[in-house]
């Protein structure tokens, strides 16, 4: 994967800034960027500015998320839309840090028997679409955890 250092047509751009790290090399790992309350330990993704649990100013700090999750529920969708060809899988995964995320699933056939509820999942930075300038727009997806 080209990492966006060039200006060529295959530049990699994030779907949105500040929410995740795109691997800079084959040895690098992508990760999601959340926020953690140093008072109560609550972790939010996407990050929030004030802890909704403590409701005190200035307790949240940026943090990296492990990308480890379990599959909470999923559906095989049959209607293509602006960003996705059908069929595809939409799912909720719960990160081991707590947040519940609505996400696309990568790495499996879009079939009901491709996944099991509660199975371990992992985050992967993957292509979402090609933008008008020919760049790869990337964001997180989840896939069954390896090993």
């Amino acid at each position: 994967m080209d990492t966006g250092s060039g200006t060529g047509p295959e530049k990699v751009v994030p779907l949105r800034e500040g929410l995740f790290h795109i691997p800079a090399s084959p040895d690098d790992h992508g990760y999601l960027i959340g926020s953690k309350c140093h008072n109560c330990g609550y972790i939010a993704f996407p990050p929030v500015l004030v802890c909704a649990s403590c409701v005190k100013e200035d307790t949240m700090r940026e943090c990296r998320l492990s990308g480890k999750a379990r599959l909470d529920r999923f559906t095989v969708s049959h209607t293509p839309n602006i960003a996705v060809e059908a069929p595809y899988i939409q799912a909720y995964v719960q990160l081991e840090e707590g947040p519940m995320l609505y996400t696309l699933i990568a790495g499996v056939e879009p079939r009901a028997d491709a996944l099991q509820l509660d199975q371990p999942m992992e985050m992967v930075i993957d292509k979402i679409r090609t933008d008008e300038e020919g760049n790869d727009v990337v964001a997180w997806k989840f896939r069954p955890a390896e090993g």
Partner: protein
Amino acid sequence: MRDVVIIGVGMHKFGYLPHVPIKELARVAVWNAIRDAGIEAQAIQCAYVGNTAQGALEGQHSVRGHVALRTGAGLSGLPIVNVECGTASATVAFREAWIAVGSGLYDVALSLGMEKTTSGTKAQRQSSAAGAVDVTSGDGGMGLTFVGVFAALVEKLMRQYGWTEQQLAKVAAKSFYNASLNPNAEYQQAYTVEEVLQSRVVSYPLTRLMSCSARIDGAAAVIVCAREAVEKYTSRRPLVDVAACVQRSVPFYDFRKPETREIVYTHDPSSVMEAYKIAGAGPEDMELAQCHDAFSIEEMISYQAMGFCEPGDGGRMIDEGRTALQGDIPFNTDGGLLARGNPAGATGTAQICEVVQQLRGEAGARQVRGRDGTGPKIGIISNAGGGPVENAIGSLMGVVLKR
């Protein structure tokens, strides 16, 4: 707060109406409500207007209600407040009208929900729908869909509770049947369980006919009055009491706790429970119910969330016909979001129009009889607006009306 009653309701028929401008939708709903209330238009002292899409689709920002009421309905001079909160927009408008009259500041207030989603380009419509969640949260633009949220949920609940596709389809077929008896509904035709099941699968297990239409227009208006001032304005009877009107935004959920997940899976009932408490009545007292059924699964979840059965018993509720027009707790008697239609900004006041008509005994072919056979005396409405609850963004509404 002073006691507040509903003295007039009016709608413009819901449907795919690309040639009807939003001003005309507003005019018809407002003037139907004025006539229904039996008041002079000038008696309306303030107005609250709910809408979600006109900014994105028509570039009409900032003064939507002002434009619709002044150039559509002919109302000027009075305070007009534009409010927005997804599918709860019109319920919020109604609630603010209730507060304004309850406060003593005004005797008579109008709430109007109006929506036109058949205008604009496809990209604008997608932007409008995507704008009901936190657009900076990152999942916008991925291709994730609202229907997927509920499809994934029902897939899980079917496993958990043993609910069947047949049961989901029965809920939808009931809604279409009710709508077929409602001249203001989007759908004017009943679909069978088989037709619902055989329609295109959108996102498993939800089919097209288990999901509300995306492109639909409509408007619904409700006029409220201070109970102590009613004689001054109108002789229209019966009056309908606003026994409770609750709004919460989605609370903080800690998904590390299993009980939080359970609440969220099955629709947070906190606003409805608070509404029962304020009204001094429980689900056992209710004689009809409207819920937020953009997808038919939501009605089955609402049976338990709103306190009408034990967790998981929703399938039995529909099988036994308890929520049909002739049942002991008729649900979505006008067809609900699914079949009366869900033009988001107008949905909340349409729900209120229906319960008011039922409580007055004016619901025609879809009139429910109530416990004692003389017509219902009390009903509950549940509504929500904004992103799915995991996003923790949006509002939850609970309203109890009684005669």
